[in-house]
């Protein structure tokens, strides 16, 4: 049996050869069109230092950030900054993978709830050891504490935010309902207001609605009751009684009709445009203040921004200043000095902040924030003033999420739904949450 022999076997002629020729040609043509992009062409930049900086967000945020980085590159010849950004979910995955492979970026955006996952394992640079390189003196204590673990500081807030209560004035005006005083209202006031809206609209509009499982929301309530959700040593501080009271409060509002029925909030995510406040089904809800602009535009531009209820009736203040986005430097960065320089620039340079605006929240440095304010859009000014107000107040310190925090958030989300649908009582749900959360922290 030799292969050389001419075939006497039947030769079914098909378009195979033409097909393959065509596809080969198409592939070749496309490769040429791509000019060898992606096939290892192009050099490794030139001389000088190349910093790698990554964050999450969309192309608009990237444009603003790039403008600030251009200013830095102009002032520091020899340093180029290679940037990359993704949507927040994929960003987390890629960051973790890069760290695992020892291919981490120099400067990166870090989420509050994953800060200690990285910091506790020695992956991030302790900024306290480089205190002379990055000037943090302009930051309020609240802001500086956000990324403090023990005696170390592992990040600087790229911007500050808080949560706030938005109320749609168009809806309240339509039904002639007065909005309570946002600085002094209590949770009972909220319940009464919500019921009034629902009743007045004949059930067309629900008075209020928010996710009881969102950690930021329950944290404020917990602090008002004199407890810390997470304590200073990374333990669970919230008690079962508080969880139960929180669930019961929401369920009571639901019973009265002020709060939407179970299942109202979709499990599939959405932004301001798809929120119920924008569609007119809801008169008020809780949002992160840095999203105020987006919600106000989506909801017709007549939103009021109130504080969270219960701030003057509780054992102590509940609200805190948070940040959606920290800047951290990798401990193994090969260009620490340049990365520190860039970090200092981003925090303290007014022009840098003017370029980025409030895309990551209000600048952490209070002076910079004041200088930035006049150049902001009116909606941004509302949120900025709200936050600057909080910054000047005496708020109890909040503590960084311990590792395992994301498992706790998942557990709360699952149990809150059980309670919402009446599959579990508030008391049982609270007890189960505490036991699951403690288990998650023990791991």
């Amino acid at each position, binding site marked *: 049996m030799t292969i050389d022999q001419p*075939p006497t*076997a039947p030769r079914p002629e098909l378009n195979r050869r033409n097909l393959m020729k065509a596809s080969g040609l198409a592939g070749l043509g496309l490769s040429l069109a*791509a000019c060898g992009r992606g096939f290892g062409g192009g050099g490794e930049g030139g001389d000088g230092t190349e910093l790698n900086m990554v964050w999450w967000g969309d192309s608009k945020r990237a444009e603003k950030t790039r403008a600030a980085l251009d200013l830095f590159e102009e002032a520091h010849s020899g340093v180029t900054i290679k940037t990359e950004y993704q949507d927040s979910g994929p960003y987390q995955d890629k960051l973790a993978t890069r760290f695992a492979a*020892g291919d981490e970026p120099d400067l990166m955006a870090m989420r509050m709830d994953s800060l200690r996952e990285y910091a506790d394992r020695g992956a991030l640079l302790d900024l306290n050891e480089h205190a002379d390189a990055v000037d943090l003196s302009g930051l309020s204590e609240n802001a500086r504490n956000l990324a403090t673990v023990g005696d170390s500081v592992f990040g600087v807030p790229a911007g500050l935010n808080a949560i706030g209560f938005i109320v749609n004035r168009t809806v309240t005006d339509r039904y002639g309902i007065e909005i309570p005083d946002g600085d002094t209202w209590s949770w009972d006031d909220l319940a009464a207001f919500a019921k009034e809206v629902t009743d007045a609209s004949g059930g067309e509009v629900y008075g209020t609605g928010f996710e009881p499982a969102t950690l930021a929301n329950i944290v404020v309530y917990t602090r008002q009751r004199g407890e810390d959700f997470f304590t200073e040593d990374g333990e669970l501080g919230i008690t079962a009684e508080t969880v139960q009271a929180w669930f019961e409060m929401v369920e009571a509002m639901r019973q009265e009709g002020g709060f939407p029925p179970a299942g109202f909030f979709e499990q599939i995510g959405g932004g301001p445009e798809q929120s119920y406040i924008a569609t007119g089904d809801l008169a008020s809800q809780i949002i992160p203040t840095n999203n105020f602009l987006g919600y106000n535009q989506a909801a017709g531009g007549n939103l009021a921004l109130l504080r969270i209820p219960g701030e003057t009736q509780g054992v102590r203040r509940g609200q805190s200043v948070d940040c959606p986005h920290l800047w951290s430097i990798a401990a193994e960065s090969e260009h620490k000095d340049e990365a520190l320089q860039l970090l200092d620039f981003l925090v303290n340079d007014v022009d840098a902040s003017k370029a980025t605006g409030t895309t990551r929240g209000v600048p952490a440095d209070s002076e910079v924030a004041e200088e930035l304010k006049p150049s902001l859009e009116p909606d941004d000014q509302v949120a900025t003033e709200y936050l600057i107000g909080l910054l000047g107040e005496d708020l109890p310190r909040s503590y960084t999420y311990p590792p395992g925090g994301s498992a706790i958030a998942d557990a709360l989300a699952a149990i809150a739904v059980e309670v919402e649908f009446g599959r579990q009582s508030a008391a049982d749900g609270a007890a189960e949450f505490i036991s699951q959360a403690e288990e998650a922290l023990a791991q």
Partner: protein
Amino acid sequence: MSITLRSSRPAPPRSSDDEDTRLERFGSTRRSRFTRHMILCLVGAFMMYPLVWMLSSSLKPNSLIFSDLSLWPTEWDLGNYAEGWTALPYDFTVYFVNSLVIVALSIIGNLLSCSLAAYGFARLDFTGRKLFFALMLGTMMLPGHVLLVPQYILFAKLGWLNTYYPLLVPNFLATNAFYIFLMVQFMRALPRELDDAARIDGCGPFRTFWRIIMPLSLPAFATTAIFTFISVWNEFFGPLLYLTDPELYTVPLALRQFVDSEGQSQWGQMFAMSVLSLAPIVGFFIAGQKYLVKGIATTGLK
């Protein structure tokens, strides 16, 4: 039983559509045909819905996408297409070309390497065949997430980060067990007599593969090509991990940049570009589907 392989050269030029029309007329009443088409159209409307919805959303101004719920836009805005095309750091031309290069090469790679392996598994006998086959199936069964980190390290060591190699080279090395298994099943279904006849006529395994099995497996090749196109075109995670420079980005990576979970998103532009990104897959499927049906039944093994 006799084996006849009819050359397609002299076959009357009859498109499969004509054949289908002829077949449909044969042995069914007009009424039953009508009912059948009615049912198919109804189901079809249900299947078409997502595309129609995306198309309609892409034609609405950003402010109306979530408030105007009708499928027929009350206000038309074609600007989403023009603006969306240039809204990102690079034009979508770049992303489309990148995606097409990767897809075209992946298809060639999968077809070549998987069909070779499949022929080996399906129609040759050699020591360790069953073991290797089990091993191949086994590679399909491990969840990919735990392979990401070791794979990333491997490709980083090879210096392949920020190139297309991690996305392409594995396709030329038959790493996608799904397609091998698919082709194996198709090749095993072909009559054994073909090989025996070829062998008696003096064909070695390569010639048998190239001249007989490959042409007869055209539907399997078409299926592989179509599936490869769809999965590579839609793939998000691989390009996300391995590509850094935005000028290397593929279409799915680019689409994600319209969306920001923290602020306002350019929904209209995102929908417009999503619709455009579907065009190549739909086009490829429509162009490729006639090969799907070129099985033995139509190429004339009787």
